[in-house]
């Protein structure tokens, strides 16, 4: 038999009955007032036991009943909204968790937009405004110590965090500002701070409490991707609170420790992003990384190795956090080792995007700044080994930025690991990246309790450029003093300086006047000045005397190809290259044959092979361009008049004669014609045949012939992938320059085959070359011929391009593949309209 119902139960049952049936406003008011006794201190107060019973057993049914009764008519039973006020007070003053759950339930249960729904939503907003959420969480924290209902807590947790979603779904367009996620989670953050404050107070009062519910709320909110809102409020406040108070710190650590494992990553990522500097992070987290495996994994592996989204200040605060405590320092060393291992792995260099590599490099430099000499000494050999491996495979890389990264990091590491040895020094240009990295390396960690923000980094970067001008100023003093020393004044107007622009470094006047002399001077001359003068004069001579050059073109090309810098001549490489280009342009077929045959010959250095490629490209460019653009920038060329004559004479043997009579006729016409008005004499650009057209094959096909046959000294498919990259780029350029030539179709076919053979090459530079080669095929070969002759190749290329555009680790490769795909698409669009009818 069930026990006799208590007084409270009877009263409640009666009240619920009356509420659900009565339409008399005063009666209802009276009943509610009597129930209210169990909630608050209004007279006459109920017994504490009764209050407790009401709160735990009867509150929810009463609220449900109240919620279900709500309607416009019901509220207007009493004037002035008195009933509404009383009604709302039940929700706002009773136990917060039950009120919250009933409210949510009522809102979710509402069929559609209605008066009742809006009222409930407004009540919920008021509930939030009045800080009942903090009360709710606090109650949960209190109850932690007693056995509770896990299911209820789970539901509560879900509702608290998912409130914006539920409300958004329900209210659709009528949603209130309070329920928008960006506002709600900020509010939640503030409430969390209040709860923590309350917990601290209660701990001081000797009461036991737990923060695990708050941790769960925090974790869940972060999993929902709301780190920015909630932590953006929470972290600064906590940083402030934990500054002086030990108790606050402890509570905060506890809060972080209680975060469930699956939410740990989200919370930590958000914290690292929100925290200003390592000090704050250290105060908030304590030794979490040592205690919690998951946290350790996130902080020391995931954020460093698997992601690259942390900015430099975040990296600094993360690694600085690891460095601030002696218990965490071994982790830092461990991290450095692992970072270096990753940095030194050749597969990582090849397969990770540049952004990630940069991230790892930065992390290494920051680690080095934090680690001290003795700590490094123990694992010096290990670190050195990984560094050497990394430097080697980075310097091997054909991408300049990867090489660059390798040099900078290697310099810094070797300086730290071997401070006593001779410093490692590479030559590289100072760009933004190197300055940033070097600033990182020289940036000293701030002392304890010093500045928290990363401003010192900005100061360090700003400092370095300032120093240099100060030094250069000193050098100019003696000259300035000379001008100033005489103070007497008299008129110097009569001493007007003449033009002194001709005052250059004196070069010997032994420059040869004939191409043959140049060849002789370059091969046999022991006289360095003559040698240099010959080199300087050569380009001009070759262009001026094309016939004489053709006689010795092969010999000249050979000499120039083997030429070595005997003394330090300014711009030697350029001079040699320009001369070679000039020779190639003057006698394209033979010289190109020679150069391409030498490309695969034994006993050349990589430098020479790459020079061959450059020269071929430049010469092709010059040959394919219109003639009038040529020679303009080159000093020492003959005067314009003679040049024109030469051009006319060189273009066609009979043209001088042919143009003679035309001039006469035109002159006669002009003299016999009367013109009323004369426009400006307009001369369109003179047309001339594309000189590259007839020789493109000589430039192109020999280069394709033997790339897969390794020599003892030259293995294109093996170690010498840098040259292979250059070769692919050169082939692409030649293809591009061969636009509008008859041989373009054959070239395109051969090039696509070549690309097909190499399409899975591991080196990004090679792949870039291949992709640009495909693009140039699409650009240069006429669309109709492409479709006719190369349909299969195009299909294959298309699927390959789509694959690269999606999956390639290198960003440039993806972009190039996309471009090629666009070109293909354009080709299709152009062909479709004509194919449709």
């Amino acid at each position, binding site marked *: 038999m069930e026990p006799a119902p208590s007084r409270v139960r009877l009263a409640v049952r009666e009240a619920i009955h009356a509420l659900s049936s009565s339409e008399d406003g005063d009666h209802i008011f009276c009943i509610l007032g009597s129930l209210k006794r169990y909630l608050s201190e209004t007279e006459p107060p109920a017994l504490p036991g009764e209050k407790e019973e009401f709160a735990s057993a009867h509150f929810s049914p009463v609220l449900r009943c109240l919620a279900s009764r709500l309607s416009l008519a019901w509220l207007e039973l009493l004037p002035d909204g008195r009933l509404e006020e009383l009604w709302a007070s039940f929700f706002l003053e009773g136990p917060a968790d039950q009120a919250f759950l009933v409210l949510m339930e009522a809102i979710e249960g509402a069929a559609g937009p209605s008066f009742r729904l809006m009222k409930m939503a407004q009540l919920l907003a008021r509930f939030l405004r009045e800080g009942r959420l903090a009360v709710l969480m606090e109650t949960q924290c209190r109850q932690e110590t007693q056995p509770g209902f896990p299911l209820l807590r789970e539901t509560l947790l879900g509702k608290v965090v998912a409130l914006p979603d539920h409300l958004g779904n329900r209210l659709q367009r009528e949603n209130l500002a309070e329920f928008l996620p960006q506002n709600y989670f900020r509010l939640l953050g503030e409430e969390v701070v209040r709860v923590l404050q309350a917990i601290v107070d209660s701990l001081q009062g000797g009461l036991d409490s737990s923060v695990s519910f708050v941790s769960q709320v925090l974790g869940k909110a972060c999993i929902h991707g709301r780190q920015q809102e909630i932590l953006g409020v929470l972290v600064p406040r906590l940083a402030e609170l934990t500054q002086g108070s030990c108790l606050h710190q402890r509570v905060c650590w506890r809060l972080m420790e209680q975060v469930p494992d699956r939410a740990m990553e989200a919370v930590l990522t958000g914290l690292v992003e929100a925290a200003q500097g390592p000090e704050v992070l250290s105060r908030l987290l304590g030794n979490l990384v040592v205690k919690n495996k998951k946290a350790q994994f996130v902080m020391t592996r995931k954020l460093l190795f698997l992601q690259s989204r942390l900015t430099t200040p975040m990296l600094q605060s993360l690694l600085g956090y690891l460095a601030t405590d002696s218990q965490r320092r071994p982790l830092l060393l461990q991290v450095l080792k692992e970072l270096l291992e990753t940095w030194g792995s050749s597969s990582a260099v090849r397969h990770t995007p540049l952004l990630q590599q940069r991230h790892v490099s930065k992390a290494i430099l920051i680690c080095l700044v934090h680690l001290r000499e003795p700590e490094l000494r123990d694992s010096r050999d290990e670190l050195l080994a990984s560094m050497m491996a990394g430097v080697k495979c980075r310097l091997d890389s054909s991408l300049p930025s990867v090489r660059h990264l390798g040099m900078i990091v290697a310099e810094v590491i070797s300086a730290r690991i071997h401070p006593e040895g001779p410093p490692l020094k590479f030559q590289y240009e100072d760009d933004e990246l190197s300055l940033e990295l070097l600033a990182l390396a020289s940036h000293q960690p701030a002392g304890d309790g010093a500045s928290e923000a990363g401003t010192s980094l900005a100061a360090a970067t700003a400092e370095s450029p300032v120093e240099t001008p100060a030094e250069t100023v000193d050098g100019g003093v003696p000259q300035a003093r000379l001008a100033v020393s005489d103070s007497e004044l008299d008129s110097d107007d009569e001493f007007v300086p003449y033009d002194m622009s001709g005052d250059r*470094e004196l070069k010997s006047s032994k420059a040869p006047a004939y191409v043959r002399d140049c060849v002789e001077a370059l091969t046999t001359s022991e006289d360095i000045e003559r040698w240099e003068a010959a080199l300087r004069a050569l380009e001009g001579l070759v262009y001026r005397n094309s016939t004489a050059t053709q006689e010795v073109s092969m010999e000249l090309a050979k000499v120039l190809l083997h030429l070595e810098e005997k003394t330090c001549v300014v711009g030697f490489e350029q001079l040699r290259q320009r001369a070679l280009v000039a020779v190639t342009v003057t006698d394209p077929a033979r010289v190109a044959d020679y150069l391409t045959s030498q490309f695969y010959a034994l006993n050349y250095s990589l430098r020479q092979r790459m020079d061959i490629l450059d020269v071929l490209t430049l010469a092709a460019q010059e040959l394919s361009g219109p003639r009038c653009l040529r020679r303009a920038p080159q000093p020492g060329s003959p005067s314009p008049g003679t040049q024109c004559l030469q051009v006319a004479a060189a273009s066609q043997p009979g043209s001088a004669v042919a143009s003679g009579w035309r001039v006469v006729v035109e002159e006669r016409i002009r003299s016999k014609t009367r013109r009323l008005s004369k426009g400006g004499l307009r001369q369109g650009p003179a047309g001339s045949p594309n000189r590259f057209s007839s020789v493109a094959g000589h430039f192109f096909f020999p280069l394709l012939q033997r790339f897969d046959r390794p020599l003892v000294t030259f293995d294109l498919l093996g170690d010498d992938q840098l040259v292979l990259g250059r070769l692919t780029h050169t082939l692409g350029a030649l293809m591009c320059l061969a636009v509008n030539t008859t041989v373009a179709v054959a070239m395109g076919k051969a090039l696509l085959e070549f690309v097909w053979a190499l399409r899975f090459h591991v080196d990004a530079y090679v792949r870039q070359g291949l992709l640009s080669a495909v693009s140039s095929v699409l650009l240069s070969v006429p669309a109709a011929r492409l479709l006719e002759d190369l349909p299969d190749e195009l299909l294959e290329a298309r699927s390959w391009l789509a694959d690269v555009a999606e999956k390639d680790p290198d960003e440039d490769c993806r972009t190039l593949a996309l471009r090629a795909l666009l070109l293909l698409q354009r080709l299709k669009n152009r062909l479709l309209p004509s194919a449709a009818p």
Partner: protein
Amino acid sequence: MAAPCPLPPPDPQFVLRGTQSPVHALHFCEGGQAQGHPLLFSGSQSGLVHIWSLQMRRALATLDGHGGQCVTWLQTLPQGHQLLSQGRDLKLCLWDLAEGRNTVMDTVRLESVGFCRSSILVRGQRWMLAVPGKGSDEVQILEMPSKTSVCTLKPEADAKLGMPMCLRLWQADCSPRPLLLAGYEDGSVTLWDVSEQKVRSRIACHAEPVMDLDFDSQKAKGISGSAGKALAVWSLSGQQALQVCGTHQLTNPGIAEVTIRPDRKILATAGWDHRIRVFHWRKMRPLAVLAFHSAAVQCVAFAADGLLAAGSKDQRISLWSLYARA
């Protein structure tokens, strides 16, 4: 300050050809035969001294007294009609040129085979001559025309100055004591007090041997050129101490001779880089770079009226009229 569009460098007024040998020394002689037209003496590597008429622009006479050895220095005496020529045959000849004569009146035997040019200081009828001495680092002072050796200026044994490269005797207006400025092989310029045979002051102003110097006694300021890439300007303080005022960097190394125009407004340098450079003397502002010669310029000289002559290894003597005197 500079004009918006500077004038192109001028061409020489005229060029004297016919020495058939590189020109090593030039000297203008005022008050020659024709009024207003000075004579120009040139000394060549083949040992000949040519006397040029600037009116007719041709050689009037040729003096052959150095046995085919290079003539390195020419100087006329103020009483006129007497010319001193120094040759690498270790002889210094005194020529009598009066009334169309051209005979050697006297010779002084030199002891040094170097390129150092001599210097004279005229005091009334008598004059003083400074020549490189017997020891490689010595300078000998002779009383002329008696050819009596007054003294030998020998640096201290541990000074290591090297050979004297150029000499300039002068005397301050207020003081009776003759002084000698000498540029040495180690790049230093030294001020000797001749009567006390002591070094008054010394400055190391060049890294290369000093090739020539000129001194402006009114401003107590001098300039020296060396085999290196710089001109040095130095001054003499009241206590007769030399101090460097500044250096002027040149585009190409090597200065064969430095000459300040008699009105002390501008100066010219003869460069191994085939160019004559003209500077404003007070401010050391570059005024012109004259590129005409095709070989090293060996000597420059100014006439009293401002005409500039330059002799070069390309066997030509160019004459320029720049910044004519008001």
